[in-house]
């Protein structure tokens, strides 16, 4: 049996910065896809999914802690880099498409032309040079953020707090109106 079972624990690298999405800011303009294409030889590795045909949601590799694609890859072509990203080594990939089949998010795709799997490498060169990934930089609505999970959660808490505050003031005005 050469298909490796999904039990080997993947080395959990340092705290990884990831690309996070704020769905209600996304317009579905596909600038992120175009930026990804420019960065990666005209093959994009992110997607825009239209939920109920109305709401756009940008989807990209999550670089899972125990990544099924990494565990399943029979050629050992998918591995975790020092920065924590799960990447495909193009020249080791034998093109069995198993990564595509086992990904719970359906993210890795396959280039019939280059004959290897394609997935997000979190713009390794750009990040090494101290820049943000191409999709994050290109987003005109700032719907994508490149941050560690704590930073992203802090931002989300603040956002929600602000909304609660807004709702609170609305309510107060409403109550005040009724009383008068």
């Amino acid at each position, binding site marked *: 049996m050469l*298909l490796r079972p999904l039990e080997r624990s993947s080395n959990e690298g340092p705290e990884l910065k990831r690309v996070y999405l704020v*769905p209600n800011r996304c317009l579905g303009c596909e600038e992120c896809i175009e930026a990804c294409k420019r960065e990666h030889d005209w093959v994009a590795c992110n997607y825009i999914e239209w939920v109920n045909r109305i*709401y756009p*949601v940008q989807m990209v590799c999550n670089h899972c802690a125990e990544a099924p694609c990494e565990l*399943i890859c029979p050629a050992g072509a998918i591995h975790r880099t020092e920065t924590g990203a799960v990447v495909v080594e193009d020249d080791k990939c034998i093109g069995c498409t198993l990564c595509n089949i086992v990904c719970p998010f*359906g993210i890795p795709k396959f280039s019939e032309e280059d004959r290897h799997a394609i997935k997000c490498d979190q713009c390794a060169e750009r990040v090494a040079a101290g820049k943000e990934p191409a999709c994050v930089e290109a987003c005109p609505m700032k719907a994508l953020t490149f941050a560690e999970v704590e930073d992203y959660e802090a931002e989300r808490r603040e956002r929600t707090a602000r909304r609660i505050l807004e709702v609170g003031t609305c309510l107060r005005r409403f109550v005040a109106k009724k009383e008068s």
Partner: protein
Amino acid sequence: MIRIEIDGNAVEVAEGSTVLEAARKLGIDIPTLCHHAGLTPYGACRLCVVEVEQRGRKRIESSCTRPVEPDMVVRTDTDDLREYRRTTAELLVAQCPDSKPIRELAERLGVQNVRFEGRGMECILCGLCTRACQQKIGTPAISFIHRGVDRKVATPFEIQSDVCIGCGACARVCPTGCIAIEDMGNKRVLRVFNTELELQACSECGAYFAPQRMIDRLKTETEVTEGLLTRCPACRRQAIGAVLRQAMR
């Protein structure tokens, strides 16, 4: 670490690596057809020959199968080697005259006209497909059969394979592009191997996305999440997108 000299440049590589890997580390381009970084070296195509000088002796060897040794002096681009490679490429073109990648490579190596009689095959017997299938996928669905001029790659008895999971790795590592995989309706057809596989339909959109046998094997041999393998990747994205939208408004 072992230090060797390639074309006058010194390079340090780990023990056990091959001359080809060392040359690639230096950025030296050695033509290859049967080499794949993810598979064991085989030395079938003979295009990667280099001149290895050790203790005053010169030998011509295939760089993909030659492990590095201390005090090796390697030359990758001499007149002799170019001649060897040209003749080998000519023979390969004679073997499969219709393969575009082989013709292009032969042209690059300086083959003007082919002096040998054509055999009209499409396979150069490099063994990449059999190695990928046996070593990596772990299903010995295809292997070399017959001897000598009759040698070819096929399934046992050249009939429908019982173990092929239809992953298509053989087609994607093939340097000549002679293995075609066609999805016709609910069947995946590998015509060269006389094999037909049933495809599984997505439980949501009904698109055929993966061979039934691959899914069965994944279910029995791995611990993939229950219900994951019934949906096609596109529908999985849709489902997760909807969850994200719900959770993070």
